[in-house]
């Protein structure tokens, strides 16, 4: 088994045993899309046409939020309790460690985002009393765009949490998340078609997400062990 798989597997294991984060994630995965479904029904009247587009738009902030909350447990907790220092002494590069942790937290974050998408559809169907037509673009959206943005959010926040001190992390953590929300909102406003699901929007979101993930990977590779050790509380 590769060290990447070992690290990712452990993060999945730890995330699934963190009851408080799982409960928070599940509440958010149900509450937020259910409320969004009310909005969908209110704006679309009896029509089910815009449901796919709005659900696609809703799943992205949920994906980012899920990436953020699972990530905090993987990176910040290990820094707070000093375990990261022991991991840095293992024969694993920092970039490997970052990649394994990011992938590990992305799995439970992705599963809860999938649940949120299902809840959004179910709630909209119930309120409209009809089954919304599934747009085929939702498939690449859920299989590519959503995972990419979860990895991007988790990767960026994880790299920042490794590099920054505890106080800076408390302040900047939320700024990162809101930064991502504004970025997605901004992208959706400049892409033709607005929040409706379209091939152009999906490609633009995927490309931007992948570029940001590459940037996060670059930043994680630039963080020095000394920087991490010196910011352990």
């Amino acid at each position, binding site marked *: *088994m590769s*060290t990447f*798989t*070992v*690290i990712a*597997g*452990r993060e999945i*294991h*730890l995330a699934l*045993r*963190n009851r408080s984060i799982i409960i928070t994630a599940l509440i958010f995965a149900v509450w937020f899309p259910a409320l969004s479904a009310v909005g969908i029904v209110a704006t679309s009247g009896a029509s089910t046409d815009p449901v796919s587009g709005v659900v696609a738009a809703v799943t992205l902030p949920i994906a980012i939020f899920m990436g953020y909350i699972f990530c905090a447990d993987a990176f910040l907790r290990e820094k707070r*309790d*000093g*375990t990261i*220092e*022991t*991991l*840095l*002494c*293992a*024969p*694993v*590069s920092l970039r490997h460690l970052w990649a394994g942790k990011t992938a590990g937290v992305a799995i439970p974050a992705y599963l809860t985002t999938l649940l949120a998408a299902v809840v959004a559809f179910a709630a909209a169907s119930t309120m409209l009393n009809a089954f919304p037509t599934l747009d085929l673009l939702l498939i690449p959206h859920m299989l590519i765009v959503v995972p990419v943005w979860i990895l991007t959010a988790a990767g960026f926040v994880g790299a920042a949490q490794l590099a920054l001190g505890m106080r800076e992390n408390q302040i900047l953590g939320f700024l990162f998340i809101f930064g991502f929300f504004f970025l997605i909102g901004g992208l959706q406003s400049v892409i033709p078609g607005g929040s409706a699901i379209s091939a152009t929007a999906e490609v633009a979101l995927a490309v931007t997400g992948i570029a940001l993930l590459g940037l996060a990977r670059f930043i994680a590779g630039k963080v020095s*062990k*000394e920087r991490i*050790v*010196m910011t352990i509380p």
Partner: protein
Amino acid sequence: MNAVDVRGLSRSFDGREILRDVTFSVDHGEIFGYLGPNGAGKTTTVRILLGLLTPDAGECRVLGQDLTLEDGARAKVGVLFENNGLADRLSAADNLAYYAGLYGLDDPRDRIDELLALVDLEDRRNDPVGTFSTGMKRRLGIARAILHRPEVVFLDEPSSGLDPGAQRMVRDLIVDLSRREDMTVFLNSHHLDEVQRICSTVAILAGGRIQAFDSVRNLIAASDRPEMTVVLAEPGERARACETAIALPYVSDCEDEGEVLRCTLTDPGVIPDFIAALVAAGFRLLEVRRSSRSLEEIYLEHVGQSGDGA
């Protein structure tokens, strides 16, 4: 090639010099004690050796390699920091299995079983580490540090926060491991009694510099004065015996300390003459022993009585 080599190591933080031209080495297979007051730079030295910090000057090598540059070389090194490096939500066995994966152990099940038995945690193997006592976590931390059979293991305050029983168990474990696994142990510790019992060589760090570096035996011998403790069969004879002793040309001082006489001789070679002179003077001796200085006294001499290196 030494197991650990430190040459001219210097490091400052925010303009404050923590380490100044620190030089010492550790032989293969020995238990080395690195002593110093709080803030002396012990942990900084270990972090530099492990490649977690970079030195301002000097060089450090572990098994001949610079761990800052060599990812693979770290596989030969084990480390136990104060936090044990364990995840509280995982079981003892899962924690060890995780590190086995990180260090690339092919089939670690037998090794995990062996170590859990060694640290007496076999029956708790599937319990979450968060339910363990401090002593149990420390023992598991030691098992984790040596899981991959490192050639050198760094133990940072392994007895810190433990009750005397657990301290003894950890101490016995370190000695046992050093012999059984033939590994070099680099021990950062405040427990001078522990260091004196198990370490063969020590370095005392204070004020950013190495104040003393030698075998425990040599350090004690070098600073030892031939001080004799004498217990008489007739306690009422102490005052006269003290006068007799101080009259001898090779006795520089003699004090009646209530239960015993404490006599300081000018030279260890005259100890037989000293005993013979007291017997010849008609005193019946119940006990005569040479008082040895403890490592603690030597340590305090080097770092100052406050123990803070000031």
